[in-house]
């Protein structure tokens, strides 16, 4: 039951009676005894009248709200109050939200696996898209009994081919977030949507031309919303729209630039502070990573080479063959030097004393670029000066890359490009001048995110009425007059464009859990048909397009169905052939680097909570961030040398100040960070994020200003106190390499030296080494699996004769980019519990798959090796032998299974696991109480209780599903039919799962590859998960850089 769904029929009611309602908020709480007393002596008709009167007292309303928070909104509305009383009984019977789901009223169409009707237990798949400011992520959502339970990339979409990212995965939990705002509110009082519409529409109509009506929106990604805005603007020409996307404001991506790179066509990739590998923050992440990784899968056929020039430690730099550490302000100057050396005209690089290493790097890079014209690509950083973009594109143009590896078009993902920093500045100026009557904030939280120098909270108070549309009662929602609970994208209709321009319709998977509204509804309320649903609006945008589009067959309705079914509109991709002119000359100015003594503070969106919007998503909070393995916090990420200079240790507190802002943060060491600079991530320090995110980390927006949104010169100093952070891997700073047997270098990480050296966990070769010795991964017998004859017992027969299927997985270390999408996907698929910061800190994080990061060489400039580690499904599993109750067993197909019901929790299996991939429920970590989270769980996977061991099962539920299907159709399981959750999410396609007894399967072929190796095989575990050793395509001219190589190598 969802009484809020009746809102559409609500009469508008009277104008809001503020004063009266404000007055009624006080009073004593109501008790049953008091109700009895009040009703005593009343009978019959009079009794009913008294009850009615009673029902109108504020105490009673408060009592109702306490009891039925979702319905309290109904209560203030006299008409629907009656319907509420009618349905109340039913609600009680259904006991909470779990009984309340229903499909959206409009027709949505199931994807490929379409049963005739809903078959309970049979999931359905729907295509939709995650609207993201840098471009939509096309999705395929698994829906079980009309509850979305798993988000994955749309496998048929040309953009991401099924790949996803942790953020998109996390939006599922964001939708079921129990702390989402559930009502329309006016000054803290619950109101109906209708009342808001009436007040809003009335006010705007009274202005005639929209004077004093301001909209502050997150970047508009929906073409329909843009169309609606244009309609509003036509009607009210003086209404103003300001877009402000905290993580992107000021970047070239928001300024109407659309550039697509083709990392697959380029042999030489140059990242100029462009972190295109870390995550969705860089436009086109999925596509860029997939194409990049594809060129690394067959080193024998040649590979690309990645140069990364970067100002913070990112996975892009860690994956790069050659990484150059520069301070953020040096990068424009370096790019200018590069442009000049390549031959771009009009460049005047600022004078700077580059070090020998930097000069050598530049020279080698220039040589390599010139040797590969038309086969290279330079990618400019988002969080860099505009000159870096212009210079990079000029170099691309000069090298003939435009039209081959880089494509520029005038269309953009963002339909209303604007200079957002200028926009918000002018808004603040108007606010201060008292020009703003109504400030309507759409999916925006400016109180938290606005640049510090604008002093937005003070200006905000000058707005006569502030309206906040948001998913939570966040920092802005708390103080806005009106708050409208917004609908999640999985709950509402919309549309958006992917990086390549393809339009996707955002179809809702579920009716809004709390009756939320979207920005479409807010803008529509000003137009001629105020109650026109988002569905109709979106259709109105695209039906004409579909009608004209000859690529969509059949009539318009059929076309619409196909669009929803496929998840995109055919033929809407940006035209790659229409070359926009890109000049080979440069006209701007290049800022000079800051002095080497100045401390630089670099601002980046947090890899998981982004600009703070996902602060309340437990998965994203908990999953350790790439490189740092930090969870639940942001920190002052700094190089070891700065830590030494400040005379601090990790977890000490430092105070950073930029301009007038000051902020305190814990010290976290970041290997390979440029000297004298500190990276801080935005998105933390939320005050009103919800039960998960509130109070975590520190708010870096407080030191971020409009004049330096990406990096600033500031100061730093130690302050007293300690700030414990949860870093989930062994702590490299504590264990320097010279510790054991004096091997390695004292500046190295002991873990890295061990893993790369005597333990043979990471094995790699340079291209030359690989060519001269393709079998490098198996050098030295000590890593090899002992012969099968060493045991007295008969070996279990896993051959083709014995078992049809023998499951195996191959992970290509050359492709893996450490983006964490697999981890997030695993959390969603396997109902993995979130344990919280304190538990994560002491090593109890529950992730079944993790990315092990090993640093090779000097920690000041290391190379990192990222290794996804999950249950290896050993054929001779050490864990099975030691379980006293037989709770972990082996299947004939080679799976190492956990029987949760049987597990008593001795944890011996975990002790005996060489890979330490087993996870134990030390406490009751699974949330058994929150109703909304129950809806989200995968019904095919047990929710584990306290005291039970768990671990990766190769997604056995998916294997079983495929086996049942194959059995029904009387055929063997096809290769690729079973896709594990981690494999499905991987944007780089680094994980391959399949049947090793099928000699034609992908996984069998990969296992026969020379690069294939097993980790810790000398323990005779015979793991089914194998790894493909890395090959680095180094530039011979830069190869001798001493600190990039340690003597230890697999």
């Amino acid at each position: 039951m969802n009484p809020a769904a009746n809102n559409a029929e609500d009469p508008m009611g009277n104008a809001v009676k503020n004063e009266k309602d404000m007055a009624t908020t006080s009073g004593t709480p109501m008790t049953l005894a008091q109700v009895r007393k009040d009703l005593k002596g009343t009978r019959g008709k009079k009794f009913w009248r008294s009850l009615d009167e009673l029902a109108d007292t504020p105490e009673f309303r408060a009592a109702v709200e306490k009891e039925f928070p979702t319905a309290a909104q109904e209560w203030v509305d006299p008409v629907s109050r009656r319907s509420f009383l009618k349905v109340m009984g039913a609600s009680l019977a259904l006991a909470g939200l779990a009984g309340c789901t229903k499909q959206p009223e409009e027709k949505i169409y199931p994807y490929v696996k379409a049963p005739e009707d809903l078959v309970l237990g049979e999931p359905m798949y729907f295509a939709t898209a995650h609207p993201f400011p840098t471009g939509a992520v096309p999705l395929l959502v698994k829906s079980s009994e009309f509850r979305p339970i798993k988000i994955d990339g749309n496998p048929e979409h040309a953009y991401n081919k099924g790949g996803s990212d942790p953020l998109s995965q996390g939006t599922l939990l964001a939708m079921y977030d129990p702390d989402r705002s559930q009502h329309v509110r006016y000054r803290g009082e619950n109101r109906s949507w209708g009342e808001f519409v009436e007040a809003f529409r009335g006010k705007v109509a009274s202005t005639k031309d929209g004077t004093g009506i301001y909209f502050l929106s997150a970047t508009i990604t929906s073409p329909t919303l843009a169309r609606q805005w244009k309609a509003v603007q036509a009607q009210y020409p003086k209404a103003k729209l300001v877009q402000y996307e905290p993580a992107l404001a000021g970047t070239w991506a928001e300024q109407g630039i659309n550039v697509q790179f083709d990392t697959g066509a380029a042999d030489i990739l140059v990242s100029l502070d462009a972190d295109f590998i870390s995550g969705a923050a860089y436009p086109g992440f999925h596509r860029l990573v997939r194409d990049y990784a594809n060129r690394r899968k067959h080193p024998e056929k040649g590979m690309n080479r990645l140069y990364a020039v970067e100002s913070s430690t990112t996975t892009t730099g860690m994956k790069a063959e050659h990484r150059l550490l520069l301070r953020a302000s040096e990068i424009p100057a370096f790019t200018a030097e590069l442009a000049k050396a390549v031959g771009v005209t009009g460049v005047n690089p600022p004078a700077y004393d580059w070090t020998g290493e930097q000069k050598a790097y530049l020279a080698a890079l220039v040589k390599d670029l010139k040797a590969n014209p038309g086969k290279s690509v330079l990618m400019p950083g988002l969080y860099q000066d505009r000159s870096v973009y212009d210079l990079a594109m000029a170099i691309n143009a000069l090298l003939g890359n435009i039209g081959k590896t880089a494509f520029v078009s005038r269309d953009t993902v963002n339909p209303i490009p604007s200079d957002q920093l200028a926009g918000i500045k002018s808004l603040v100026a108007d606010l201060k001048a008292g020009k703003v009557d109504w400030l309507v904030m759409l999916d925006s939280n400016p109180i938290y995110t606005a640049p510090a120098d604008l002093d937005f909270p003070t200006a905000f108070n000058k707005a006569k009425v502030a309206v906040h549309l948001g998913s939570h009662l966040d920092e802005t929602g708390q103080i806005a007059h009106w708050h409208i609970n917004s609908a999640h994208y999985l709950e509402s209709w919309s549309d958006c464009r992917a990086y390549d321009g393809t339009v996707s319709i955002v179809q809702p998977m579920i009716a809004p859990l709390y009756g939320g509204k979207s920005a479409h509804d807010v803008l529509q309320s000003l137009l001629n048909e105020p109650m026109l649903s988002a569905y109709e609006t979106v259709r109105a945008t695209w039906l004409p397009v579909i009608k004209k589009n000859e690529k969509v067959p059949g009539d318009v309705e059929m076309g619409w169905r196909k669009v929803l079914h496929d998840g995109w509109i055919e033929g809407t991709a940006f035209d790659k052939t229409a070359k926009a002119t890109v000049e080979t000359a440069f006209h701007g100015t290049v800022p000079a680097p800051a002095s080497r003594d100045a401390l630089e503070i670099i601002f980046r969106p947090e890899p998981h909570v982004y600009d703070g919007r996902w602060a309340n998503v437990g998965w994203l909070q908990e999953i350790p961030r790439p490189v740092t393995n930090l969870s639940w916090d942001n920190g002052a990420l700094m190089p070891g040398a700065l830590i030494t200079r400040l005379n601090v240790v990790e977890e000490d507190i430092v105070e950073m100040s930029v301009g007038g802002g000051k902020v305190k943060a814990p010290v976290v060491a970041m290997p390979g960070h440029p000297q004298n600079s500190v990276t801080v991530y935005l998105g933390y320090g939320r005050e009103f994020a919800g039960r998960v995110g509130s109070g975590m980390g520190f708010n870096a927006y407080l030191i971020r200003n409009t004049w330096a949104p990406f990096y600033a010169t500031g100061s730093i100093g130690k302050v007293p106190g300690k700030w414990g952070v949860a870093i989930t891997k062994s702590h490299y700073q504590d264990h320097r390499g010279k510790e054991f047997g004096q091997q390695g270098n004292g500046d190295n990480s002991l873990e890295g030296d061990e893993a790369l050296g005597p333990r043979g966990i990471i094995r790699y070769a340079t291209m030359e080494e690989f060519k001269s010795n393709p079998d490098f991964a198996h050098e030295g017998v000590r890593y090899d699996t002992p012969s099968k004859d060493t045991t007295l017992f008969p070996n279990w027969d896993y051959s083709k004769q014995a078992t049809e299927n023998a499951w195996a997985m191959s992970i290509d270390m050359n492709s893996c980019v450490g983006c964490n999408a697999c981890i997030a996907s695993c959390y969603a698929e396997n109902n993995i519990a979130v344990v919280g910061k304190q538990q994560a800190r002491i090593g109890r994080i529950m992730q079944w798959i993790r990315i092990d990061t090993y640093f090779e060489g000097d920690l000041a400039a290391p190379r990192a090796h990222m290794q996804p580690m999950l249950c290896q499904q050993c054929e001779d599993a050490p864990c099975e032998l030691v379980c006293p109750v037989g709770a972990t067993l082996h299947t004939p197909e080679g799976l190492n299974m956990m029987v949760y019901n049987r597990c008593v929790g001795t944890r011996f299996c975990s002790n005996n696991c060489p890979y330490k991939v087993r996870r134990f429920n030390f406490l009751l970590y699974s949330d058994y109480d929150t109703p909304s989270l129950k809806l989200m769980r995968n019904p095919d996977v047990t929710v584990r209780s306290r005291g039970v061991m768990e671990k990766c099962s190769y997604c056995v539920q998916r294997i079983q599903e495929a086996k049942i299907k194959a059995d029904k159709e009387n055929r063997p399981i096809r290769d690729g039919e079973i896709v594990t959750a981690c494999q499905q999410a991987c944007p780089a396609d680094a994980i391959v799962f399949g049947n090793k007894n099928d000699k034609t399967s992908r996984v069998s072929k990969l296992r026969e590859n020379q690069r294939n190796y097993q980790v810790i095989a000398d323990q005779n575990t015979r793991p089914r998960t194998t790894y493909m050793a890395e090959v680095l395509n180094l530039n011979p001219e830069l190869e001798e850089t001493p600190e990039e190589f340690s003597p230890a190598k697999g």
Partner: protein
Amino acid sequence: MATSEVKIDEQRIDPATGEYRVITPGQTFRGVTEKITRLVLTPHTPLGWFAIFGIAGAGATMLMVAVVWLFLKGVGIWAISQPVAWGFAIINFVWWIGIGHAGTLISAILLLFKQGWRNSINRFAEAMTIFAVVCAGLFPLLHVGRPWLGYWLLPLPLTMDVWPQFRSPLMWDCFAVSTYATISVVFWYLGMIPDLATMRDRSKTRLSQYVYGMLAMGWRGSVRHWARYETASLLLAGLATPLVLSVHTVISFDFAVAVLPGWHTTIFPPYFVAGAIYSGFAMVLSLAIPLRKFYHLEHLVTLRHIDNCGKVMLATGFIVAYGYGMEAFMAWYSADHWEAFTFWNRAFGPMGWSYWVLITCNLAIPLTTLWSRKLRRNMLFMFILSIIVNTGMWFERFVIIVTSLSRDFLPSSWGTYRATKWDYMTYFGTVGLFVFLFLLFVRFLPMIPMSEVRTMLPGAKIKPKVAAEAGD
């Protein structure tokens, strides 16, 4: 020191039998009986007893609080985590079981070897065994994630027809520990029957007559009783003797069977058994020295006993030292990186301090001082040393379990361990429980076996000549 200089001390040889004296001369049958029964049958409990009983009771109560909280919340209240999934619980388990071993050794092996001196101390040593096994037995149950299902480790013919996994060392533990507990209790009780009859006979109150009478199971002291009693004792000693070796061997399999470097070693069984006896004798001393002082039992528990315990500790201490030496040697000799790293990490890693505590307490201090007869006969020194050795033995288990787990195969998964207050409460709680039970024992049961001590009196000895004549 100067042991070779010791002359044959007239006082130490019993002129009547020509054997070494165990108890001081001048004891009579009546005197011994009187002395031991009075301790129990007196209505006046010493105030000191109440004081220690109160402290121990508080410890036992603390254990109860810790256990209740543990059952409510789960094992996550302890410090265990990934990768160190075993912590105090298993350390304590192995420690307590080890302590128990001395009692069984004294009562069974020394009986078979006809070591008469054991008679004075075997009763409370056996009681120590039982209470130690009680404390130890708690831990396997407490440490499992779902203690209410702990019985699944037992081979019960349940309707589900699911059996435990017989290849798991934890399963073997179940058998080893339960057998050990059973044999120990039976042996202890059986040995006590003649004494219980004495107590029954000397009781003045109706209640104690009744209770001791029930416990004495109708013992009348007939020759037939005695004959059967002696046979049963020998049989039980025969059954218990292998247990001294097997129980800790099985416990060591919990580690030796695992693949973990630092655990996976064949030296563990003998080294664990020796360590168990080492710590057990230390515990015997920790109990005997205050007891003889407190209850004025110097005539029955003599310097000879303390001295002998010291010698056993010296011998087993050297076996333990050999074990440590072999671990270090194999780390180098095997040329196996896993072993080498683990050994290095034990000694010089982040938790290296615990290894040096262990070396100091188990090797450096005892193995240098126990050579000295003078020190072996210095009560204060021996008491302190016994505490030091048991501390060292606790750290031995800490090093084996925690340090090995903290850094194993995959460097990415290295971790650390920092005990919580609940860990300490549980550990010290079991110490409290142990002392609590032991004090009840000394108050209500004869702590020294009267019947057996009486056999050591000159009057009980049959002259060799007479014996030869009587022999058939």
